[in-house]
Each structure stands twice: as structure tokens, then as C-alpha cells.
């Protein structure tokens, strides 16, 4: 590749961030169910993917899909009981689930306990950065099409008013579990890529802070907005490196930027903005009717 490896590495960090943020956006942004345990699905994807590469040597695309599927299955199993809870209760439940997953990986021999796993380079000829960025693009497109689909509109209806959605004939529990599964699938894919990019994973990498990082990306970008999740991940991924010239003031400025953004844009960078609509309006071709509907 023509881009220098340093930029490549930052782009990869951002790409993985985008995949994770899109995943969380589906359940938290679109469906309105706060999950504080998405790092758990990331770790399930990371460890299952890593093990498939180490033990079975499967082709990389299969490994990534399997990592996502494992996380999705786990999400459906755990989602069935806990998604009946709402708000704070659900958040605490997902938090607990994430801790359980971490402790399980810390005690399994197959995941090498607290030593973690060293992941060999994946069995593929496609450069990893390219795979990550292509996956980020695919996941974002999938996210956007879910948002515009009947399923996506049902999710947003649940977010806005669960009772009204149920009255309109939406099977709320079923939709929530499906959204949770899709969301975890993306987190699993992100985790699997993370494992192969870094080459070493440890259960402690996927703690509460990782979940909060994901949430920060989604909230910063704008809850429910697909381009917002991209922008949020890009911002949080690039800022620490762009601010590097500030040496020890770096994290201070980084924190101040987050605070300022939340003060001036409480809905996130792209919250409440329909990019398509925005572009049309710029071109002076806005139809009054579509604006009125928004």
C-alpha cells in the first residue's frame, strides 16, 4: 500500500472503531436499549476468531464471520431473558454479563487464562488494513439499510414508544432480541479483526472501559445516526494521535474537547441531521414537503 504504516495503523484503529460503533448504534441508537456490556461481544468475537485461526487455520473471511456469529448466538441467548428489562436495569444487566464473560475467559484453559492469546497473522493474501476498512464500509452500508428497512423503522418505533409500537402490531421482545443479535454480530466482527490486527489479546482488554469507549463513539457521533457513528469513531480514533504534539497535555485537551462537544452538540455531531436532506438543501432543491415531515 502507498499510505505509510503509521497512517495505516490509525486508519485500522478507526475502522475497527466504526464497526464496533455501528454495532452498538443498532441496539442503543436505533432501538434505544442502553448496553454497557458490548465489550463482551467484542471479546467473544476476538477469542473465537483467534482460536479458529490458531487451532483450525480456517480462511480469514470465514474466521471473521464465525467470530461475528458466535457473538450473535451469545447475544440471542442472553438477550432473550434480559431484554425484557429496560433502561438502567438493562444497562446493569449487560454490565454484569460483560464481567461474567471476562471472568470465564480468564479461567478457561483454551483461552490461555490470564496470559491471553498470541494470534498468528491470518491465512489470507489480502492486506489486513484493507480488510478492516472494507469491513467497516460493509458494516456501515448494512447499518444504513437496516435503518431504512421495515425492521429498522420498527426498532425506532420501539425506541420512541414501546407501548405504541406494540399496539401497532410490532412484536417488541422479538425485535429487540433480533436487534441485539445483529448488534453483537458487528461487535464480534470488530473484535475478531482487533485480535488479528494486534496479534495479542488478553481478557482484560475487554473491560468496562472498552464498552464505554464504544458508547462514547456512538453518543459523540449522534445516537441513531449511521454517518454519526462513522464520524464518532473517526474522531475518537484519530484525536489521541493528532493531539500527540501536545505531549503531556494531550489527554487533558482530548477530555476538554469531549466536554465541549457535548455542551455544544448534546445530540452528537450528526444527531438529528439527515445528511441526504442536508445535501439537498445545500443544492437548493429541498422540497418543502420532506422537510415538513421531519
Amino acid at each position: 500500500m502507498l499510505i505509510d504504516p503509521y497512517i495505516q495503523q490509525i486508519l485500522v484503529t478507526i475502522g475497527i472503531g466504526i464497526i464496533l460503533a455501528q454495532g452498538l448504534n443498532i441496539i442503543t441508537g436505533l432501538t434505544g436499549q442502553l448496553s454497557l456490556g458490548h465489550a463482551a461481544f467484542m471479546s467473544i468475537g476476538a477469542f473465537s476468531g483467534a482460536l479458529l485461526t490458531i487451532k483450525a487455520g480456517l480462511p480469514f473471511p470465514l474466521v471473521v464471520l464465525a467470530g461475528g456469529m458466535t457473538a450473535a448466538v451469545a447475544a440471542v441467548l442472553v438477550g432473550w431473558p434480559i431484554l425484557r428489562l429496560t433502561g438502567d436495569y438493562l444497562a446493569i444487566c449487560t454490565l454484569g454479563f460483560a464481567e461474567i464473560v471476562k471472568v470465564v475467559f480468564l479461567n478457561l484453559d483454551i483461552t490461555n487464562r490470564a496470559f491471553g492469546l498470541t494470534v498468528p497473522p491470518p491465512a489470507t493474501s489480502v492486506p489486513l488494513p484493507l480488510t478492516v476498512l472494507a469491513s467497516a464500509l460493509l458494516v456501515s452500508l448494512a447499518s444504513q439499510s437496516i435503518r431504512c428497512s421495515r425492521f429498522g423503522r420498527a426498532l425506532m418505533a420501539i425506541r420512541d414508544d414501546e407501548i405504541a409500537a406494540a399496539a401497532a402490531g410490532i412484536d417488541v421482545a422479538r425485535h429487540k432480541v433480533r436487534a441485539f443479535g445483529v448488534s453483537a454480530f458487528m461487535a464480534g466482527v470488530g473484535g475478531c479483526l482487533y485480535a488479528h490486527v494486534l496479534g495479542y489479546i488478553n481478557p482484560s482488554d475487554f473491560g468496562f472501559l472498552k464498552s464505554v469507549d464504544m458508547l462514547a463513539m456512538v453518543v459523540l457521533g449522534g445516537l441513531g445516526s449511521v454517518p454519526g457513528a462513522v464520524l464518532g469513531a473517526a474522531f475518537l480514533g484519530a484525536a489521541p494521535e493528532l493531539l500527540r504534539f501536545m505531549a503531556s497535555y494531550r489527554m487533558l485537551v482530548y477530555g476538554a474537547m469531549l466536554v465541549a462537544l457535548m455542551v455544544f452538540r448534546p445530540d452528537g455531531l450528526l444527531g438529528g441531521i439527515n445528511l441526504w436532506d442536508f445535501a439537498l438543501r445545500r443544492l437548493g432543491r429541498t422540497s418543502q414537503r420532506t422537510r415538513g415531515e421531519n
Partner: protein
Amino acid sequence: MSRIATVAVGCVLAAAFLAGCHKKEEPRTPAAGGGDTVKIAFMGALTGDVAMFGKPTLEGMKMAAEEINAGGGVLGRKIEIVEADNRGDKQEGAALAQKFVSRDNVVAILGDPTTGISKVVAPIAQKAQVVMLSAGATGPGVVEIGDYIFRDTLLDSVAMPALVDYLVKNLKFTRFALVTSDNNDYSFGLSQTFRDAIKGKNVRIVADEKIKDGDKDFSAQVTNIKAMKPDAIFFSGYYTEGALLMKEARKQGIKAPMVGGDGISASTFLELGGDAVEGSIAYLGFSPEQATGETATFVANYKKRTGELPEMFGAQGYDGVKILAAAMKRASSIDPKVFRTALAQTRNFPGVSGTVTIRPNREPVKSPLCVLEVKGGKYVLKTKVPVKMD
């Protein structure tokens, strides 16, 4: 207003990106080729949870570089330390490693002091054919990553047999309670090393207890330990849990001291533990006490520079730069492809943190081992135990 803000933020981001991307157009000089300095990168955390490992390492490195430069540098070139903070984050460590090898064209990366980030950085250094010397990583699976990967710290697998010999012969300890923190990779590894070291010796583990990092209540484990009347409690975890465990042990009337690795050598251990940790024994690769020769000079200079006594990471960072410089001199080259062979042949290097020999498998052997005891609320050097160099 809000739209203007969005556009403004977008513009700032875009500008920042462009500024960041612009640099990549600079022509790349091959590693070790350009400039009249030799660049050695510092990899470690200067902020965050593990900054206490990174900061002294960097201080030590700078001291060594200044001394070498004052004496004319290496092969007529000055040593330049390239520093950056990775916050103890693996993804930042990876990005920085790429920056060091592709933009800064360093010949060697010194760090990371922790095993986890070392394992992320090592494949990048190996692929770019840049030497990596970790001053601190003690876990398994680091130097195995490739033939450019080294470390200069006293390994537990090297130190433990010597320590166990000392505990058995000099202190007459034969019955141990072993306490492991099973969500801590360092603790898990150290306990395993302890088990390996006592094999074939007249030593028994009478109680084998598990705790977790973050636990506060150890009454159940201590009750079990008390029933077995051990001579000592071997604790492989970190200072916070160690201090709380000893408090509970003293409360329940256990007189046996705690023995542990560098995990329980921290001021927090003394502050939290108070009287309960009196008599505790920790072993380390370095102690500023009873220093002789070059180590004494190093200790005095470090104190003058920072106002504090150096501890292990400062000494190892200092030694790391000196070991690299010595290898470059022996190889008459600053090309990592050439001097790594000389580095692998380091024998009996007189470092300030002990004598260093690098084995054919690139693992270091160091001597001596410093055994510290807590006396009057301070760590006091009890003895220096020589380690067999083979």
C-alpha cells in the same frame, strides 16, 4: 448556530487530517541511513495506570544517552531518544511502533515495560527489522516472536530458583501458603514459576489459595491458611491485595511473613499495610542500596537529576541504552540487521541493574538478585543473592 458548529468541527477535523496526512510525502530514508544521530525510541506509558513503569525508564534512557553523547556518542554519532506516550493502550502502542519504524527511522525500540504491549509491538519491530529491547517485560512469549526481539530484565524463571534456595537454606522456610490472583497474568505466571522452582526441593505448598485483583475481603483465604501453619505466605500478586491480605492475616494471628515478587515492592504496599507488612520479603533485580562502582555513580546522578532514588525501571532503561550502544560499537554498525547479532552475543555486560548475559535464545540472565525486607515501614536490602550464569 448548530449547523455552523458542525461545519466548523468538520473543517477542523478535515484540516487536522490533511495536516497529518501531509507528512507522509516526505521521502523515506532507509532505517539507520539518514542523519547523523542514532535514534532509539522509548515505548511506554507516561500517563495512565502504568506510567510508574514508563516514566523512570525514560529518565534512565535519557541519562544514558547524555552520558554516551558527552563521551563522543556511538561510532561518531549522537544518540537521540525519540519519546512518546502510549497510555498503556495496545492500539496506541501499535500505532506508535509503526510511527517509530516508518517515520522516525529508529534503529531500536526500548520498551514496552509491560508484557502485553511488548507482544503487540514486537511483531511490528520484527517485520520492519528494527531491534526491540523490552526493559521490563517478564511474561512468556515475548522474545519468541522473532530474532530482533530482546529483553534485559531479570526473569522470574531465572530468579526464582535462587530465591527459593535462599529461603530454604538461609531462612529455613519449608512450608508455604501460595496465594495467586487468578485474574492477573503476572500473578498467574509467577505462581507457576514458584511451583516449578520448588520441584525436587524439600518444600511443600500447604495451602493453595486464589484471590482476584480488586478483592477487598480475604478472611476466607486467611482462615484456610491459618489452619495449615505455614512458614511463609508466597504471594504472587500486586501490592494492594498483598497489603490487605497481610492485614487480615495479622488480624487472625498469623505470624508468618509474606514473600513476593516486584508486585509487592511499592510504596502503596507500605502505606496500606502499615505494621501488618513488617517483615515482608520482596525480590527485585535492582536496589539502590549498597551500590558499588558504576551503580553507585548511577544512583547519585539519578538522585541529582530527579530528586528521587532510582528503582528497577530507571536502572533497566539506563542499561538498555548502554547495552544497545555497546552492541553497535562491537558490530561497528548502527544498522539493526548487523548489530542485532552483536546484541545477541552480549556476555557479562556490567550494567547498573546487574551483570547481563544474553543467552542464545535471546533471553537474559542477570545477577545478582536483591532480596528486600520491610523494616520500620521501609524496604531495606536484606541481601544480594548471586544467580548462576551459564
